[in-house]
């Protein structure tokens, strides 16, 4: 069990973990990733799954993302998503 540090919990003390990381990616004509360029170019062998989230459209910053679970030729797996509001790709570790 983690010991009680005695500190008062407030928003400033919260540290977000597993934040998505901005990456560069190559896409095909349908907008799906074919290669991830960050930190080095890795060709995607298969997109094993994809899913989309559209939410919070009533807020200042709506959420609209297309997620892809990709498999590289190396056998490594990764989840990336395209933010459909700004067009950027992000890596999301799970």
């Amino acid at each position, binding site marked *: 069990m983690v010991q009680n540090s005695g500190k008062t919990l407030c928003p400033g003390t919260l540290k977000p973990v597993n934040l998505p990381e901005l990456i560069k990616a190559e896409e095909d004509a349908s907008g799906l990733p074919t290669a991830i360029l960050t930190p080095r170019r890795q060709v995607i062998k298969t997109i*094993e*799954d994809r*899913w989309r989230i559209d*939410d919070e459209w*009533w807020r200042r910053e709506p959420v609209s993302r*297309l997620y892809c679970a990709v498999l590289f030729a190396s056998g490594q797996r990764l989840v990336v998503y395209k933010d459909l509001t700004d067009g950027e790709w992000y890596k999301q570790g799970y």
Partner: protein
Amino acid sequence: MPYAELHCHSYYSFHDGASSLEELLTQAKELGYQALALTDHDNLCGAMRFAQVTHSLDIQGIIGAEVTLKGGYHLTLLARDSTGYRNLCRLITAAHNSGERNNPELDPCQLPEQAAGLIVLSGCPRSELAQLIDGSRQAEARALVRQYLEWFGWENYYLEVQQNLVHGDTSRNRALAALAQEMGVRMAATGNVHYHIRERHQLQDCLVAIRHCRNLEETHRERRANSEFYLRPVKELDTLFQEYPEALTNTLAIANRCTLDLTRDLCYIFPDYPAPEGETPESYLEKLCSEAAVRRYGAITPEVSARLEQEFGLVRKFKLAGFLLMYHEVIKLGREVMLEQGLSDPSLALEENPPGRGRGSSVSLLIGYLIGLSHIDPLKYNLSLERFLPSDTMSTVPDIDLDFPRSIREDLILRTHQRWGWEHAVLTGTIATYMVKGAVRDLGKALGLPEEEVDQLSRQVDWGSAKGLKDQMQKSPQFQSKIDTPVWRDLIRLAWELDGFPKYLGQHPGGMVLSSTPLIDIVPVQRGAIDGRYVCQWDKDSIDDAGFVKIDFLALGALSQMQEALELIHRHTGKRIDISRINFEDTAVYDMLGGGDTIGIFQVESAPRRSQRRPPPSFLVYTAIMSTL
């Protein structure tokens, strides 16, 4: 590749579907779909209109429903033919009559008995099969598939695969494909459509929040994950289902087998009247009228005889004897209620003190006057028969409205259910729809706008279309500055989209439908909000389109007052007043009318009518004056 969409919710999936029938069908036609199935949640409220619109747009429509099974599981049913449609109606009726009133649930045990003519798709992610697959309970999934194959047969059962880009869809579809392969079952791809275009997903989110009486922030779990539940271009479908192309082609095979045309295949028959032995309905009606004519007029005068002859000629021509006798039966039931409530004297003939009052063109019928449908003597007022019974053609049966005192009407509805059984006599449904006030209240809450301001706005706006919200806010000093601000802007746009959307199925105040064939074979029937009442899932327009005969039992408070007055007169004087024989030339009454002393008197108490300050010369002239105001 051509495609037929077999799973589509319209706005008749109350607070879930976010597009109208017309929007869905027009879009499906534009996208080149071969067919579109309507599969609303546990109802066929839109089925008749859907069938009509498919005809006008020349696209194949398939009638179905997504029924809720015990445990909350969903199952998609499609009617192949009129037998399948009948079974669909019965199953939906059973679902509504077994669960809680607003939470229909069908016991799957009822499926095998009503399986004929139906095609079953295993259902959306909320189906039992999908839940078993998601829970990796393969053995139970296999057993369930076997069970449905046994009930419906291999040719009528498909595993339903949906790809709405929701996390889990892909893995579920792969598992379903493996199961299909293993068990030799075919798959069908469907879109689980909830709106015709992607942009409508925001309204759909709001509808879900409204259904749960919460706002958008509080309904993350209940709302759909994304905006992918629209009618897709066929090319998109080819990509989404590229692993299972046969699931797409199977949609066409299913559509080709669904040949039901609701505008043609209904089997509605108005009840035959069981005439007493040795009589036909015509002869019996003539007998009833002759007897009553003697009571009414002292004898069958040449004038009465000529009019009856004319009317019976038309009754025979249009085969209306059974129809009129059925009304007579209803009036007799009303009379029973009246006697039980102590509102009439059993020694009086029915036509002397009928329980209801006819109105409109039907009072021109002497037969109606003689069998208790009306208290107005059409001969005395020289009423033309032509408006009620045109002598040349008649496209539908004539409309007869009956007004009753409230207390009689309430009991009469229950008694009519009992007399013919609720499977044969039900209340007409009515669909409440969104207008501006309801749209502001519900959407405002869903969007999380300040409750007090939403309340103020809904009270400030005038009744009318929700499409006019922006104009109404423009006129309000309090709200005009909010028109282009975040969220209020959404409210205006969404209210525009929501205008005219159905809210719920209610019951018509008094319209009843009678049928010889069980009505539950033609339209699903559900319990009404008031105990003992049963309502069909069609509103008056669908009922008209279906050619049903609707009898309107309308309640008039004024009639209740008059009935009470008559009883008070009887109690205090011992006299029974025949309201059809009161003196229409009573000068004291005309003086009262001319003096504007009419507050509390039905139809003549409004300000313009009270302003007619000259005593009318006669009842007929007064009627003419009143009808012009």
